[in-house]
C-alpha cells in the first residue's frame, strides 16, 4: 500500500504544481497509524501529511457537495465504493461534475481499528499485510491477525469496481471474492417476526441519536433534514422511546432506498455498532427481487426504482405474504 500512497502523493503534487487543480481531496495523517481524517490539500507543502493506507475507510464523495462549488477544479481520490456515491450525487445534481477530477485508487479492503483492539491489541504502531495475514506491531510486540476478521463491515462483502475515473492509480490486482452481501439479511428474514422484533429492539435500543449515520451518508444530502426541522413535528431528540428510534431509522432507510449505494458508512461510524447496513440492504434486496437488479451509483443519470414503475409491479399485499413473483 505504501507504493500506492507514494504514487498518489506524487500525482497530487503534479496536479497542484501544474495548476491543473486548485485542491486535492484525500486523507491526512492522524496521531496514530489508524486515525486519518479526510482533508483538502491546497499546497504541495500540505501534502507532507497526506496518507493512504488500510485505515482510510472514510468515503470522500459527500464532501464534494460543498467542495465542488468552490472556485477551480478539485481532484479527489475515490475508492471503488466511493465512486458509486459520487455518481449518485452527480445524478442528484449535488456535485458539480465538471469541477471534479476523479482519480480512482485501488482498495484492498480497509481495517476496523475497533475490531483490532477487540482482539486485545493496543498501542498499535503499524500494520503490515501479507495475503490474509496482518502483522500488527504495537508497543507490546507483534501480533498476527487474520485479515477477514478485522475488516470494516462494509468491506467484508464488497465486490465493487470503479464506476467513475478520469484516471486511475491501481498497482495491484484485487483478489477475487465471492461473498453474498445479503447473507445477514436472509438470516433475519428467515427468523420469525418475534425474533426479528427482538433483534432490532435490542440493537436500536443502543442508538444515542447522534446522527452520525445520517450525517456521514452520501445519500442523506438534504439541506435541511426533516429531523432537524422544528416545523416537521418529528424533530424530537429524545432517545428513550422505542418508537423514536424506529421512526428515525425507518424513515432514514426509506428515504435513501433506491439511492443507497451500500457504501456502508452508516455502520462504520455508528458509535454503538448498530448494524445499520442491514436496514439499507433489506431495501436493496427487495428492490432487486421485485423490480430487477439495481445498483445505485452505477449510472450518473436515469431513474431509480422508486421514481419509476411498471404496470405489472407486485402488489404490496402479495409481497407481505410472500406471494409476489
Amino acid at each position, binding site marked *: 500500500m505504501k507504493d500506492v500512497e507514494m504514487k498518489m502523493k506524487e500525482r497530487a503534487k503534479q496536479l497542484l504544481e501544474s495548476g491543473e487543480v486548485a485542491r486535492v481531496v484525500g486523507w491526512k495523517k492522524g496521531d496514530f497509524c489508524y486515525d486519518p481524517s479526510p482533508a483538502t490539500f491546497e499546497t504541495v507543502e500540505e501534502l507532507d501529511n497526506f496518507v493512504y493506507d488500510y485505515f482510510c475507510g472514510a468515503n470522500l464523495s459527500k464532501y464534494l457537495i460543498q467542495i465542488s462549488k468552490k472556485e477551480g477544479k478539485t481532484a479527489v481520490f475515490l475508492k471503488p465504493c466511493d465512486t458509486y456515491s459520487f455518481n449518485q450525487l452527480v445524478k442528484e445534481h449535488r456535485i458539480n461534475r465538471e469541477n471534479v477530477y476523479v482519480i480512482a485508487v485501488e482498495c484492498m479492503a480497509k481495517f476496523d481499528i475497533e475490531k483490532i483492539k477487540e482482539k486485545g491489541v493496543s498501542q498499535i504502531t503499524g500494520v503490515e499485510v501479507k495475503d490474509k495475514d496482518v502483522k500488527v506491531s504495537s508497543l507490546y510486540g507483534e501480533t498476527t491477525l487474520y485479515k477477514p476478521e478485522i475488516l470494516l463491515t462494509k468491506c467484508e462483502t464488497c465486490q465493487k469496481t470503479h464506476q467513475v475515473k478520469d484516471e486511475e492509480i491501481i498497482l495491484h490486482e484485487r483478489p477475487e471474492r465471492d461473498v453474498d452481501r445479503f447473507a445477514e439479511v436472509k438470516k433475519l428474514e428467515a427468523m420469525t417476526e418475534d425474533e426479528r422484533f427482538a433483534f432490532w429492539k435490542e440493537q436500536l*435500543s443502543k442508538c*444515542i441519536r*447522534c446522527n*452520525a449515520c445520517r450525517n456521514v451518508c452520501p445519500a442523506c444530502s438534504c439541506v435541511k433534514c426533516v429531523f432537524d426541522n422544528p416545523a416537521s413535528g418529528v*424533530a424530537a431528540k429524545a432517545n428513550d422511546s422505542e418508537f423514536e428510534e424506529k421512526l428515525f431509522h425507518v424513515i432514514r432507510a426509506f428515504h435513501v432506498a433506491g439511492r443507497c449505494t451500500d457504501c456502508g*458508512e452508516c455502520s462504520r461510524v455508528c458509535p454503538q*455498532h448498530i448494524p445499520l447496513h442491514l436496514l439499507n440492504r433489506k431495501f436493496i434486496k427487495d428492490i432487486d427481487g421485485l423490480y430487477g437488479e439495481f445498483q445505485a451509483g452505477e449510472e450518473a443519470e436515469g431513474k431509480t426504482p422508486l421514481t419509476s414503475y411498471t404496470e405489472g409491479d407486485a402488489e404490496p399485499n402479495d409481497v407481505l405474504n410472500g406471494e409476489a413473483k
Partner: protein
Amino acid sequence: MLKIAKNKLNDLYAKINETMGLFIPIKKAGEVNYHVWGEGKEVSIETLKTVKSPKNMFFPQTENMMKFKTEGKNLEIIDLRDEKRPFVLFGVRACDYKAIEVLDKVFLADPVDSFYQSRRAATTIVTLACSRPEEGCFCKAFGIDATAPQGDVTTWLDEEYLYWQANTEKGETLTKLVQELLEEGGETEVAAQKEATAVIIDKLPFSNLNLDKFKPENLNELFDSPKWEEMSEACLGCGTCTFVCPTCQCFDIRDFKTNEGVVRYRCWDSCMYSDFTLMAHGNSRTTQMQRFRQRFMHKLVYYPSQNDGLYSCVGCGRCVNKCPQHLNIVKVVKELGGKEND
C-alpha cells in the same frame, strides 16, 4: 483495605441490589454501557471505556420534567419529580469521576438543578482504578491520577481480587452493607498495581499534552485562529463526540403531546447540531466551523474561565476513539497549543 475475590463479585452486586439500585457497565448487544444491574446480566467492569459515559446516571439522555393538563382555559402543571431511590454507581474510572465534578459546577450552581441534584444525592459512587490505560487516554494531562480515583469508595481490580477502600461516609455505609463479603488485605497488591500503572501512564502518547495556551487571556486570540477552518473541515456535524463525552452537558427542553396532556422533557443536545442555536430570526452559528470551534473553546477556554481554570475535558479519550472522521480534542490542543505539543 478490604478485598473480595473476583469470582464473588456477582454476590457483591446481588447484595447491593437487595437494598439499592446498581448502575454498572453491562454488555448489551455487543456494546458496554452503564445499565441497571439484574441477575444474569453480563457485567463488564473490566471495560476501560463504556461507549456512553456514566453521566446519564445523573443527567439522563431524556428526562420528563413536568406535565401540563388543560381543562377548558385552565392549565395545570404536574411536577413529575419524585423521590430518588438510593443507587450505587459502580466502576467509575478516574476521568469519569472528575467529569462529575465538572458537571456539578454547572448543575449544582445557583439555581440548583433539582433533577440532577436529587439523583446526585441519592447515589453512592464506587470508582475503579485503571490498570490498562490505552493510547487514547490522556487524563494525566488534566492532573488526574487514574491509579487512585476519588469517590465514595475506591476499588482496584487485578486478576484475582477487587480491592475496596471507603473514602466517605456514604462509602462507609455501603461498606457496612456488604461487609460480610469483604475480607481484610490488599495494600501491597494495590501499591504494586498503582506503581506499575503509573509507569504505563507516563508512556502514553498524550500524557504530556501541554495546555498552557488555553487560558482566558488568550480567548480572542484562540477564537480568531485561522486554523479552525482546516481543523473542522472533515467534521460531519454529528453529535457523537458530545454524546459520548462525560462532560458535555448541553440540553434541549421540548414538549411532547400525549393523549393525556403535554409532557415537557429535556434531552441531551449537541452544539454540533445546526439547529442548536437556531432562532426564529436567524442563527448565531451558521457554519460547522463555528459549531466545531464552540465545542472546543467551551471545553478549553470558556468553561475554565468561568470555573477557576478547571477544564471541561477530563482526557477520557472517548472522542478520540469514536469520532467517525477521527477529529478530536487532542488534535485541537496540538494544533493550537503551541510548540510544546509538537
